[in-house]
């Protein structure tokens, strides 16, 4: 509305009508120390809808009766405000019932980044219309998930955490400089010196440093047993890779206006700080924003 080049356009809220549930999971000590989260799955039990409760058009074309179920991670900030981050969303049929799984790995990754003492993991589940607009079906109102306190605990919301013990499946720190790396060496960080003075192209104009320790990741990683890998077919084998890198500042001499001037530039990702075992295809955790 503050722009000169656009006419103000009035908006109309068509519908939100979200049916929202807040799930609270006490997480302290649920994740073992020195472990890596592979996957977190939220399981919700969708209760069956009696056929008699369905309007006639939905009984005739059951495929059209769907609802959008969205899972968000809710963070209560120190200033009292809330912030939500979308973690998973999918369409569910109103006519189905049974367990529905949602991938909430990212929410648990976010939760792990909170400073201690950490608040419980808060997951906001909302059930919305499949699409907005006039004539959109209101099937979403008939989607019900079982809550806590169901008789016999049947159908209660569940959070499944799959972790790997890094003592077995992780990398070591630095390699033993006395022992040469062989095929059986466990993933570690090995010293590798880059001699800038010895490089012909760098002669005369790369002034500092004369060389630097770049390090490299060598060795192999233990693979999870086949029974586990079949659960996550999208994950590749665990490989020894550089997981944290540091930049390298250099002083170079560049010619400007017929004179040479020393200049400092920072080269990103030049030195390996940490090696880790990681699977190709695994979620790269997003950093928690303020």
């Amino acid at each position, binding site marked *: 509305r503050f722009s000169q080049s656009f006419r103000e356009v009035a908006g109309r809220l068509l519908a939100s009508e979200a049916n929202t549930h807040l799930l609270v999971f006490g997480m302290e000590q649920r994740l073992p120390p020195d472990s890596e989260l592979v996957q977190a799955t939220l399981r919700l039990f969708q209760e069956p809808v009696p056929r008699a409760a369905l309007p006639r058009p939905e009984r005739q074309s059951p495929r059209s009766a769907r609802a959008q179920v969205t899972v968000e991670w809710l963070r209560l900030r120190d200033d009292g405000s809330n912030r939500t981050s979308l973690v998973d969303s999918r369409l569910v049929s109103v006519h189905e019932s049974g367990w529905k799984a949602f991938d909430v790995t990212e929410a648990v990754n976010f939760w792990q980044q909170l400073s201690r003492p950490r608040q419980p993991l808060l997951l906001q589940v909302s059930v919305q219309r499949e699409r907005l607009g006039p004539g959109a079906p209101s099937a979403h109102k008939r989607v019900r998930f079982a809550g806590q306190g169901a008789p016999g605990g049947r159908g209660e919301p569940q959070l499944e955490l799959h972790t790997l013990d890094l003592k077995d499946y992780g990398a070591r720190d630095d390699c033993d400089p006395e022992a040469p790396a062989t095929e059986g060496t466990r993933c570690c960080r090995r010293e590798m010196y880059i001699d800038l003075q010895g490089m012909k192209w760098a002669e005369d104009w790369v002034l500092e440093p004369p060389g630097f320790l770049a390090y490299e990741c060598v060795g192999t990683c233990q693979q999870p047993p086949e029974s586990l890998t079949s659960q996550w077919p999208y994950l590749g084998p665990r490989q020894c890779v550089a997981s944290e890198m540091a930049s390298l500042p250099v002083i170079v*001499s560049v*010619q400007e206006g017929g004179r040479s001037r*020393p*200049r400092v530039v920072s080269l990103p990702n030049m030195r390996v700080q940490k090696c880790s075992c990681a699977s190709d295809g695994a979620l790269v955790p997003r950093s928690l924003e303020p």
Partner: protein
Amino acid sequence: LSEEQLRDSLLQQLHLSEPPVLDQAAAEEPAIPAHVRARYVALLQQSHGDHSRGK
């Protein structure tokens, strides 16, 4: 980290396509001004504490 990767990264940062060829007189000027060295040292210290996370 190969020699080529290192050279390419440096040239990219300087927006150069080839390593510069300095004339002999320029190459023999060894003095690095104090403010340039101070910036270099500051970046060096910063890079020890500031790591980028990746795969």
